[in-house]
């Protein structure tokens, strides 16, 4: 039986180019039995958080096969960067994971700094940690709100996305001039020192957040309906999570305690006391939610300590306005909100990178989706998709 989604003879476009040169998908997803049907989810669908297409094969309401299809947002960042100078590439890095732009800047700058061997002034490192952790909180607040919407709870979105994340964006606007794409962390330090009283306003925000986190837990974490939709759904064992290359909150939800900031501290993370957020060990949707919910608290702890310890001093190391890093190759990575964000950079001694590869955690985490949704119902697909917390800008780059 041929399916209407995958016509066996793709229509010809004028000019001779054909729409597709062969069957679109792997495995036997196109071979549909009498009792099965194909369901096309996306690429434009509110629950896919961007332009992601998933083809689901259903037996009644049970999913028997699923194939994600990515690439709709591909902008060729890695190719573009070969024609742009190093400072021009920081701007591009903002656009990959647009919910965690600060950590994107950081991952790229860290790689260039390794090539240039620059000393970063301590004040710049502390401000980097503050904005990096606040960005993680902002990113997890988007997750908290949208995940609630995915499962039918609209109110938490208004609290986390509409009220609290706005306050963080206001702080970022004050320090960098932008709300989403900051271009704030630069090679050698940061763009500008924090304005007068900014640290105090961050501390005031932390105080305001404390009672609100209790509210967060009342709204979702301990909500019995929310728990029913999550506990035991979309389990992934620790072995599988590791083999699929999971990092960040998704990996920690399955058990392994890997956290770059603890295991291989970069910047000044050695100076802070905090716990690695873990789930209760099942690797299900609820664990992935819990890890992110706890990370909000832990990140706020780090920001609180950084605000107290922040030293005075310059915020920019000794870097020339125009620089040509020496020839070489480096790999640098940071703990981004979605996992380990790596930059593999090859320089040939000119002012543009010879090769710049981004280790995009969302892209690698999304591979497991097909396996994770098998055997679950259609409504659970939305929960599993949402709990992976990917950003399509980073998946497709």
């Amino acid at each position: 039986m041929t399916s209407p989604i995958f016509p066996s003879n793709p229509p010809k476009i004028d000019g001779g180019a054909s729409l597709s040169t062969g069957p679109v998908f792997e495995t036997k997803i196109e071979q549909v039995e009498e009792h099965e049907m194909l369901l096309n989810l996306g690429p434009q669908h509110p629950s896919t958080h961007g332009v992601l297409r998933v083809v689901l094969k259903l037996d009644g309401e049970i999913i028997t096969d699923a194939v994600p299809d990515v690439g709709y947002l591909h902008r060729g960042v890695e190719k573009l960067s070969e024609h742009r100078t190093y400072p021009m590439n920081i701007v591009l890095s903002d656009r990959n994971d647009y919910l965690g732009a600060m950590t994107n800047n950081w991952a790229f700058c860290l790689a260039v700094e390794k090539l240039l061997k620059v000393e970063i002034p301590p004040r710049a490192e502390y401000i980097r940690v503050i904005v990096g952790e606040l960005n993680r909180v902002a990113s997890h607040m988007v997750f908290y709100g949208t995940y609630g919407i995915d499962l039918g709870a609209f109110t938490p979105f208004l609290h986390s996305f509409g009220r609290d994340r706005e306050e963080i964006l206001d702080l970022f606007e004050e320090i960098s001039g932008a709300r989403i794409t900051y271009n704030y962390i630069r090679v050698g330090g940061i763009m500008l020192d924090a304005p007068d009283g900014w640290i105090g306003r961050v501390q005031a925000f932390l105080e305001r957040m404390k009672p609100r986190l209790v509210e967060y837990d009342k709204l979702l974490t301990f909500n019995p309906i929310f728990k029913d939709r999550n506990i035991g759904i979309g389990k992934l064992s620790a072995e599988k999570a590791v083999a699929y290359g999971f990092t960040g909150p998704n990996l920690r939800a399955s058990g392994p305690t890997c956290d770059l900031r603890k295991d291989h501290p970069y910047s000044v993370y050695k100076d802070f006391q905090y716990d690695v957020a873990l789930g209760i060990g099942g690797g299900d949707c609820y664990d992935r939610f819990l890890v992110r919910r706890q990370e909000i608290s832990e990140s706020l702890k780090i920001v609180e300590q950084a605000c107290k310890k922040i030293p005075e001093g310059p915020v920019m190391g000794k870097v020339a306005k125009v620089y040509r890093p020496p020839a070489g190759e480096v790999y640098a990575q940071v703990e981004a909100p979605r996992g380990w964000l790596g930059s593999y950079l090859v320089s040939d001694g000119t002012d543009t990178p010879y090769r710049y590869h981004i280790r995009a955690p969302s892209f690698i985490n999304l591979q497991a989706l097909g396996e994770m949704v098998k055997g679950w119902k259609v409504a659970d697909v939305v929960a599993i998709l949402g709990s992976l917390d990917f950003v399509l800008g980073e998946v497709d780059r």
Partner: protein
Amino acid sequence: MFSTDLAKDVARKIPRLTTVPEKPNFIRDPDGQVMVLPGNLHEVCVNLRDNPQYLFDLPLQMTAVDYWKENIFELVYCLYSTKLRQGLVLKTQVPRSGPEIDSVSDVWPGMNWQEREVYDLFGITFKSHPYLKRILMWEGFPGYPLRKDYVHLTDRYDSGLEIGTPGLDEKGIPIPPK
């Protein structure tokens, strides 16, 4: 995370592995890297994953670099052990003409899409890959964009200003890098 001592140790203990020789005036960070011949890649990867001394269970990333002057593609695999908390950079090189290598997506399923991406953007074929199709570009896209000799053909999305594409001379022939 990546250490020179570990790389030397791995290269000594696992057969068919060598350390990457140092290059003058070329920074390597991490500097501890090991090299394997493309024919032995799969066997060595299984060993690195299962050897109780190393247990590289997490496929951190893999990518390729087009070294046009040396006429090779270099494949870079970064591996990590969640149990021992250490990493390794594994490299291999394939010729630029007819590049072909064994797939390691059966060793780590996390390499599946990354190999597809390298196939998509570099045109390197991964033998015995379960589903080697383009992933970021569409089916039927002409050429492999991340190769250094890739030529952008003007299409309907160009405003006309891009016709003098960087990397091409007046006759439209790619200029080799200096």
